[in-house]
């Protein structure tokens, strides 16, 4: 994997984490694909049973063949596009910064970057039965800037990563001689 595609690494910088969404997060898409795959087969069986002459008529049969082919090819595109959307979401944590790469559909990609010392708040959130069972969830990172918020979506072990980020942010503040915000 070329992380260099997503970031230009500084000389003193080393990568600590390359995070992706948990594999379980892709299962709903696979289940949906299986349902979409099965629908024409079920409909064809029903139609063949209920209207056998209509389905096999010289007028309609070519349309069913081509329509079925278009439908299945479209579902493959759907599956692959969703896989790319899922797979190209990537969060890189280095000893200096966080880079957030998110793919939204085929033609929309956002990259956000923030310095570790600017982190003010890190919140992890594990929701739902699957998140609890497989230990994945969201991690929200807020900075002093109102506009910059990064969300690591459906990453494995968000609580562990949260602890590490807080530690890294403290280390970076020490490095930049920035006083840690006093706790109330």
């Amino acid at each position: 994997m070329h992380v260099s595609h997503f970031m230009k690494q500084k000389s003193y910088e080393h990568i600590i984490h390359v995070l992706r969404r948990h594999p379980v997060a892709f299962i709903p898409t696979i289940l949906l694909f299986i349902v979409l795959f099965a629908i024409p087969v079920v409909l064809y069986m029903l139609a063949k049973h209920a209207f056998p002459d209509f389905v096999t008529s010289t007028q309609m049969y070519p349309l069913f063949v081509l329509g079925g082919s278009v439908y299945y090819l479209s579902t493959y595109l759907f599956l692959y596009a969703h896989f790319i959307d899922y797979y190209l979401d990537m969060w890189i944590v280095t000893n200096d910064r966080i880079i957030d790469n998110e793919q939204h559909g085929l033609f929309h990609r956002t990259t956000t970057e923030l310095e570790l010392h600017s982190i003010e708040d890190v919140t992890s959130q594990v929701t739902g039965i699957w998140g609890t069972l497989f230990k994945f969830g969201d991690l929200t990172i807020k900075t002093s800037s109102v506009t910059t918020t990064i969300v690591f979506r459906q990453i494995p072990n968000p609580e562990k990563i949260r602890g590490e980020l807080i530690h890294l942010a403290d280390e970076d503040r020490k490095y930049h001689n920035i006083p840690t915000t006093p706790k109330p």
Partner: protein
Amino acid sequence: MIAFPLYIFLFIYLAFLCVFVIFSCINAYHIFSAGIFTVASFTMTVTVILLTLLTLYITWQHVSLIDWSQPFILFEGGNF
């Protein structure tokens, strides 16, 4: 009565195939440009390619048996 040859649908299908190929190439470009060659991306890419080839093969098996020069009659007159 409105009638046109069946092969019109074949042309529409071929136009769809062109769109399909373009979008597939864009998908593949995303994976290859990101340089992500893992077991997951390889498995998914191969699965989609194999499913596509299988679908095109089955389509061809059926399409080759059809007489595309026949007219497709949309509205047949004299029913009223």
